[in-house]
C-alpha cells in the first residue's frame, strides 16, 4: 500500500481508538517516552502488558472457578490488571476493572465471573487493536515513512444517546 494512504489509515485508526475510548492520553505519553535511546519502548511495554494480563486473567478465572472464592486475591489481581491497563492507557480495560473491583467488594461470584468475561473481551479487543496498530507502524516504517504523531486530543466523551 502507498505510504500516504498507510499514514492516513494509521491516523484514522488511531483516531478511532481514541474516539471509541480504547486508548487514552496515557498511550500518547508512552509514545512520547519512546525515543532513539528506547525505540521499542511502547512495544516492549505493551507486550509486557499482554503477557502480564493474560497471566492475570488466567489466574482470575482459576480463582473464581474455585468453590470458595478468595475475593481478596481476586481483588488484588484485578487491581494489578487495572494498574497495568491504566499505565498503557487501555482505558476500556481499566474502566471494566474498576467495575469489576466494585463487584469484588460485594463478594458476588456470579457478577465477578460476568465481569471477568467482560474484561477478557475488552482485553482481546484492545490487544487486536494494538497489534494492528503496531503492524501499521511497521508497514509505515518499512515504506520509509515516519509514523505520524497524534498531537491532538480527541474528545474522549462518547456520546450518550439516550433519547
Amino acid at each position: 500500500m502507498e505510504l500516504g494512504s498507510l499514514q492516513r489509515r494509521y491516523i484514522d485508526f488511531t483516531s478511532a481508538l481514541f474516539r471509541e475510548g480504547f486508548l487514552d492520553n496515557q498511550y500518547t505519553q508512552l509514545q512520547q517516552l519512546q525515543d532513539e535511546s528506547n525505540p521499542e519502548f511502547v512495544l516492549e511495554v505493551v507486550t509486557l502488558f499482554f503477557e502480564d494480563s493474560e497471566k492475570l486473567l488466567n489466574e482470575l478465572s482459576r480463582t473464581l472457578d474455585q468453590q470458595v472464592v478468595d475475593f481478596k486475591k481476586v481483588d488484588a489481581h484485578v487491581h494489578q490488571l487495572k494498574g497495568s491497563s491504566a499505565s498503557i492507557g487501555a482505558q476500556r480495560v481499566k474502566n471494566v476493572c474498576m467495575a469489576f473491583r466494585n463487584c469484588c467488594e460485594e463478594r458476588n461470584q456470579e457478577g465477578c465471573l460476568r465481569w471477568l468475561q467482560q474484561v477478557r473481551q475488552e482485553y482481546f479487543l484492545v490487544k487486536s487493536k494494538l497489534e494492528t496498530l503496531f503492524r501499521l507502524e511497521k508497514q509505515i516504517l518499512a515504506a520509509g515513512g515516519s509514523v505520524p504523531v497524534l498531537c491532538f486530543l480527541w474528545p474522549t466523551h462518547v456520546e450518550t444517546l439516550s433519547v
Partner: protein
Amino acid sequence: MSRRRVSFSDGNQCKGGRRWSNPLVVLFVFCCVGCSICLLWGLDVYGILERKVRVRALGDEKEKTLLDQYNLSKDRVHALASLISSLNQERFYECMSKSVADERLGSNLLHALREQRPEIDQSQDQQHWDRENMSHEKMSVEIMQETHQFFPEPLLNILYLVIVEMVVFSMGFAVGIFFKSSCQQFQQQKHYKQQNSKGRGITERRKETLVNMCDERARMLQDQFNVSMNHVHALAILVSTFHHGKQPSAIDQKTFAEFTARTAFERPLMSGVAYALRVLHREREEFEKQHGWKIKKMETEYQFLVKDDYNPEKLDPSPVQDEYAPVIFSQETVSHIVSIDMMSGKEDRGNILRARATGKGVLTSPFNLLKSNHLGVVLTFAVYNTNLPPNATPKERIEATVGYLGASFDVPSLVEKLLHQLASKHTIVVNLYDTTNVSAPIRMYGPDVASTSEMHISNVDFGDPTHQHEMHCRFKHKPPPPWSAITTSLGVAVIVLLVGHIFHAALDRIEEVEDDYRQMRELKVQAEAADVAKSQFLATVSHEIRTPMNGVLGMLRMLMDTDLDATQEDFAMTAQSSGKALIALINEVLDQAKIESGRLELEAVPFDLRDILDNVLFLFSDKPQAKGIEMAVCVSQQVPDILIGDPGRFRQIITNLVGNSVKFTREGHIYVSVHLVEDAKSVKVGQCETLSGFHVVDKRKIWENFSMVKYSNEANDAVSLMVTVEDTGVGIPQDAQIRIFTPFMQADSSTSRTYGGTGLGLSISKCLVELMGGEIGFISKPGIGSTFSFTAVFRDGCKDDIKRHHSDPALSDFQGMRALVTDGRSIRAESTAYHLKRLGIHVHVATDQDSATNTILDLCSASGKERLDMVLVDKDAWGGGSGISFPRLLLDRRQNGAVVPQESLPKMFLVATFLSPTEVHDLKSAGYVDSIMKPLRLSMISACIRKALGVGSKRQQLKGQPMALHKLLIGKNVLVVDDNAINRKVAACALKKFGATVTCAHSGKEAILMLQPPHNFDACFMDVQMPEMDGFEATRQIRLMEDRVKELINSGDASLEMYGNIAHWHVPILAMTADVIQATHEECLRCGMDDYVLKPFEEQQLYSAVARFFEFDVADGQILADMRKKEEASDLWASWFGTLR
C-alpha cells in the same frame, strides 16, 4: 358569544341547549314588553292626538264664548243706541240710572268673562304643558342618545355585545315562537289583553273627553240662555222704567214693537216678547175702556203656539177672574197675543205666579211652538213698580208687581246654533231633556237615538229651580280601533321575527364554524401527538438500530485487523463505510429528533478549534485530493487557542458544511476561515483573489443579515466566532434556497440521487448554531459556488486556568524557527503560514519568485536568529506545477551570484494537493527535502519538519519545564517501587527520560531492604497498593528504620561513618497513586510519605512534587524536613480551626 364558546369548550352541547330554555322565557317577556312598549307608544301618540283635538275644541269653545260675550256687550251698546234713537235724552238718562241693575249685570258679565279667562289661560297652559311634555319626551330621547355617545368605546363595545347577546337570545326566542304555535297563541292572548287594557284606557279617556265636552256644552247653553234671560230681564226693567215709571207712559205698543224688533238680534233664540199688564178685576172695566179691547181668554193652553189662521178677534172674552194679565205690548212676531189674558192659560198662570213671587225668570215646560213646530219654553219675568230690595218677601213682590214680561224660547234653535258654533259637533250627539218629571223626561232637543253607547249627563240650570234640565251627550261613532298602535306593534313584531330569523341563521353558522373549529383543534392535537410519537419512534428506532450497527461496525473493523487479502479487505472496507454512512444517518435522525423534542443540550468543555478544523478537513481530504481540489483552513490569530464549548457539536456543524462543500464541488477549492465576529467586519474587502483562482460568491452579503455582526457587544470572556466555509461547487438553485434549512429538504429531489444524503445536515446545523447563540446564513450562485457562514459564541478557555494543550512537547520543538512561505497566491500562503505559526515558527511570506529568492539568499547569509530554517513552496505557486522547479531557480541564482554553502541553504518543502508517483520520485532531485500534502495539518507538518530537520527529543529537552525537570532529576538515584511490572517499567522509563538513574523494586519488602541506610537513593517513588506489603506500611517501616539509625548515631552506638556521614536519614518517599481522593493523600502524609504523584505521571505534577525536594541540596534535607513539619503543624491548626468553625 364568549359564554357560548365556554360551553362548547366543555364539549357539552346539551348543556348549551338546556341553557336556552330560560333565556327563551326571558326573551318572551322581553319581546312582550317590547311589543307593549310599542303599543303604548302608539296609543300615547293616539291619545295625544285625541287630546289635542279636544284641547283645540275646548280652546275653540272658549274663544267662541269670549267672542259671544264681547258681541253681547256690543249688542247691548247697540241696543242702547237704538233706545236712544227711540227716546229723548231725558228719558235716556232716567233709563240709564234705572238700569243700574242691568249695568251691574254688565259688570257681572265682565266679571264672568274675567272668570273665564283663567280658564282659557288654563287651557292654554294645558296645551302648552302638553307640548312641553312632548318636547320633554323628545329631549329625553336626545339625552339618551347623548349618553349613548358619551359611553367610552370599550363600554360601547360591551354594550353592543350585550345588545347583540340580548338580540340573539330574542332571536332564538322569536324563532322558537315562530315554530311553536302555542307560544304564538299565548303571545297573542297576551297581546290582546294588553290591547284591551289599553282600550280601557282609551274609553276612559273618551269618557273624560265626553264629560268635558258635555259639561262645556251644557254650560255654554246655560250661559247663552242666561244671557237671553238677562235681556228679557233688562227689557222688564225697561218696561218698568219707561212705562210704569213715567206719567204718561213713554212706551206704547208701537214703541215697544219697534224697540223689540230692533233689539231682536239680542235675543236670537226668542221667537218673541210680550208685556202683559197686571190688571185686577176691579180695574178691568177701566182697563178695557182705556185700551178699547176686551181682555180675552186664551184659546188653547199655550198662547205662544201661534197658528197661521189665528185670529185674536174670534177669541172669547176672559171670564171673570181676580186679576188678569192682558198683553198690552208685544213684538211683531207675537202681536196676535195682544189683549189675551195670560192668566187664563194654566201653564202661563203658574208661570206668572211663580215669576212674580220669586222675582226671577221662570220657565214653562217645553211645548211645540206653533210656527216652527219646534219645542219651546216660555220665560216669564215679573215687572215691579218699585225698586224692591233684593231680600223682599214673595208677598211684597206680588204686591209690587205691575206686569209680566214673557218671552218664548226656541230651544232646538238655541242648541243648534250653539252647537254650530262649536268644533267637533260631528263627533258628539247632544240631547236636551226637561227632567222636571223624572219618570217621563221631555226631549227638548236632539235625535231620538236609543244607542247603547256611553253617554254623559250634565245638568243644565236655566235659572228656574222648578224645572230640571239635563243635557245628554254621546259620541256619534264608536271609538275607532288604534290602527297606528296595531300597525306599529305588528311591524315591530315582523321586524323582530325577521331579525330573529337572521340571527338564528347566523347562530347556526357560528355553531357550525365552532364545531369545525373544535374539530380542527382535535385534529391539531392529534397531529401534534402524532408528531411527538414520530419523534419518539425515530429516537427509539434509531437507538435500537445503532446498537447492532455498532456491533457490525466493530466486527468489521476487527475483521479488517486480521490478515485479509486485497479483495477481502476492499469488501470489508466497503461494508464498513456503508455501515458508517448508515450510522451517520441514524445519528442525524437522532439529532433531529432530539432537537425537535428539545432535549439536545450543549456541553461546555475546553477544546482546540484548530485541531477540530484540521481533523475535519483531513477526514474529507480523500476525495478533494483525488480531484485536485484545494482545501485550506485559516484561523485568525485573535481566536483563542482554547475555547470552551461543545466540540462535538461544533465539529458536527463544520463536518456538515465541509461535507456538503466536498459533495458538491468538482473543481476549485474549499476554504474554511475563522475570525472573531468583531474582526470579520474588517476583513479585507474586495479581495478578488481566491484560493484556487475560481470565482466565489461575496460572503459579506451573508453577514449583512446577521444581527450579531451589527451588535457584537459580548460578555468579558465570550468569544464570538465567525466561521465561513467557501466552495466553488455547483451552487444552490435560487428556488431551493429558501428551504435549504428545512429538515429532509434538499435543493432538488435529484440531489439525493446524485449526491446522496438525507437533507438533515443543514437543518441540524442551523439548530446547533442557534443553540450556540449564533446565526447561520449562506449565499449561493449556481455555477459559481456557495458560501456558508455561521457565528457561534464560546468562552475563552485561555483566561481560565486550564492546562494548555500546547504544552505538548512535540510542538514546542519548533519555537523560534524561521520559515519562508513562497506562493503566488497570498491567501494560500496565508493559510500555510497560519499552520506554521501554530508551531511557533516565525513566517515570512514571499509572493513572487524574485523576492522569494532574494529573501532566501539574504537570510541564508545571516546568522543566528535571523537564519532561515525552511522554505515552503506551493506546487502551484505560480501556475500549475511551477513550484517544483523553484529550487532549481534558486540554485541558478546562487551559482550566478555569491556562493553560499550548500548546508546553509534552508530546507525546502513542497506543499501540494496531489503528487504523482513520478513527482514524488523526482522530489529529491529537484532540491526538496520532503513534500507536505494538503490539506495542511499541524501533525503532518510537524512530523515532516521534524523528520527533515532532525529535531526531536534532544531539542525538546532544552525547552521549558521538561528541561527544568531534567535539571532536577539528572544524576539522581531514584528507586521505583511497584509490584506491577508494566507500571514499574513505565514509571522507570519516564523518570529515566528526565535523566534520573532508576532502580526498580517489585515489592515493599524489597524496597525496605534497598532503603536500609546507608544507601544512595535520592528519592523513592512508591506504589500505594501492593500485595503483601502496601506502600504505607513499607514507608512506615522505612521511617522506623531511619529513626533507629538516628537514635543509634545519637546514642553513639553507631558511628556516623557507618551511615555515609549522614546523621539524619530521610529519604523522600513519594506515593504513586491513581487515586485522586483526598483521604488517600492524607493517609500518605500520615504514614511518613512526603508527597504523592499521580499515576500515570504528568510532567507538571511530577515537577512540582519533585522540585520540593531537589531544589535544595540533599544535605539540607534536615532543614527541609523541619520546614515540612512546621507546615504540617500549621496545616493541622488550620484544619482544626476549620472543624471548629
